[in-house]
């Protein structure tokens, strides 16, 4: 539109969290994307819509976005995966609900600070279908609200990032009544990560990267549940991740990491086939991951 403002239309990834827009394997540490940005912020999250992006000339470093996108489909929410399966992602988008999404992003002194939000309907049905399932219909019917704030720092080989987010589904009880998918009222999650490029010790302006990093994540996918929901401590998870990221050249990365996962005790009422039919459940688990990634 001009040199400070532009409009994106069609299928795009809204500015929510860090990974959604910035998901190439060369841009984050670890083989897995942060779990908080997989289960709470369902990155990569593309939707059909229109979004205005801009930057301020008055406040150096301030960027903003405001968009209107297709809503979610609560009928597809799957237990234990948050709102992830409810994304239309352009395919079969019903446009029977819409959502507003917006962000403020600020660059200052090697920091990148962002706050973003999403508020939209999730009935994903025609009025008659929604009525028959007793779901609220309308542009923002059966609403889902997601709020998020994050901060990143990059300087002199040192990097830090942290993110906190919350998803609120106020009519989760109606969704459970219609689909029996044990949808929660609230889910929360946060993570913090630090890393240091070891090659920076030997050459200050190195273009290579050998980053040693550590990340801690916590998420609770049933932080608050409606009266007709069943709580399960299995969905309270924490992850401790440590590893190395090596980039011999730009665009290529070799990653090695160890993930230590801890969860709560599964609710026996939700176990359909108890031991010995089902394998025993271990509340702690470790995974060693090796991977190669590239971007082009």
């Amino acid at each position: 539109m001009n040199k400070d403002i532009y409009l994106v239309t069609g299928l795009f990834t809204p500015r929510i969290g860090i990974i959604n827009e910035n998901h190439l394997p060369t841009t984050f540490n670890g083989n897995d994307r942060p779990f908080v940005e997989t289960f709470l912020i369902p990155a990569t999250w593309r939707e059909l819509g229109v979004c205005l992006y801009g930057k301020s000339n008055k406040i150096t470093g301030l960027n903003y976005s405001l968009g209107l996108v297709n809503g979610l489909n609560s009928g597809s929410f799957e237990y234990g995966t948050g709102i992830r399966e409810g994304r239309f992602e352009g395919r079969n988008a019903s446009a029977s609900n819409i959502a507003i999404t917006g962000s403020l992003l600020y660059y200052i002194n090697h920091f990148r600070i962002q706050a973003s939000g999403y508020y939209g309907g999730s009935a994903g049905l025609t009025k008659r279908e929604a009525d028959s399932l007793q779901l609220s219909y309308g542009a923002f019917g059966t609403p889902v609200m997601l709020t998020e704030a994050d901060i990143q720092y990059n300087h002199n080989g040192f990097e830090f990032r942290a993110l906190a987010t919350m998803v609120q589904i106020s009519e989760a009880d109606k969704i459970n009544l219609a689909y029996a998918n044990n949808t929660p009222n609230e889910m929360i999650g946060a993570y913090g990560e630090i890393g240091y490029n070891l090659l920076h010790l030997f050459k200050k302006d190195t273009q290579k990267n050998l980053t040693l990093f550590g990340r801690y994540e916590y998420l609770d996918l049933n932080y608050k549940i409606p009266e007709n929901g069943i709580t399960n401590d299995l969905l309270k998870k924490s992850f401790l991740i440590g590893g190395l990221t090596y980039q011999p050249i730009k665009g290529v990365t070799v990653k090695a990491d160890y993930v230590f996962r801890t969860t709560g005790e599964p609710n026996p009422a939700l176990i359909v086939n108890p031991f010995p039919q089902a394998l025993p459940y271990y509340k702690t688990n470790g995974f060693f991951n090796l991977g190669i990634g590239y971007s082009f």
Partner: protein
Amino acid sequence: MNRRNFIRSGCTFCAGAIGAGFIVSTMCSCASLPIYKGTTEQNKISIPLSNFKDSKILIVRNNQMEFDILLVKNSETDVNALLMKCSHQDNQLTATKNGLFCSAHGSSFDLQGNVTKEPAMSPLSKFRTEINNQIITVFLK
């Protein structure tokens, strides 16, 4: 969500955003960068050095060009001219005194145009400059 909850959540979000904005604004002077609106003549733009004021960087805007140019004053006799177009997927960049940042996918560049954070892989396009009698000339071709 009932109306009361919606208003409460909405107000919490707005208050958070305003609070964050306030904290951020107290962390810095938030001065805007100087912008010089110039015209091109024979594929050149001329900019008086005085436009830098106290800043080390100056944005040069021209209606015939799709992207702004960032002038970086390394010394009184040496100025870089960088095209503010991300080398990843051509998004406009945000300039600050610490570098150039792309809000689209997170690339960043130093004030010499080198990539400091991927996904961009190549440096920013640069233009040749000359300084004569306190006037900087940027050669666009």
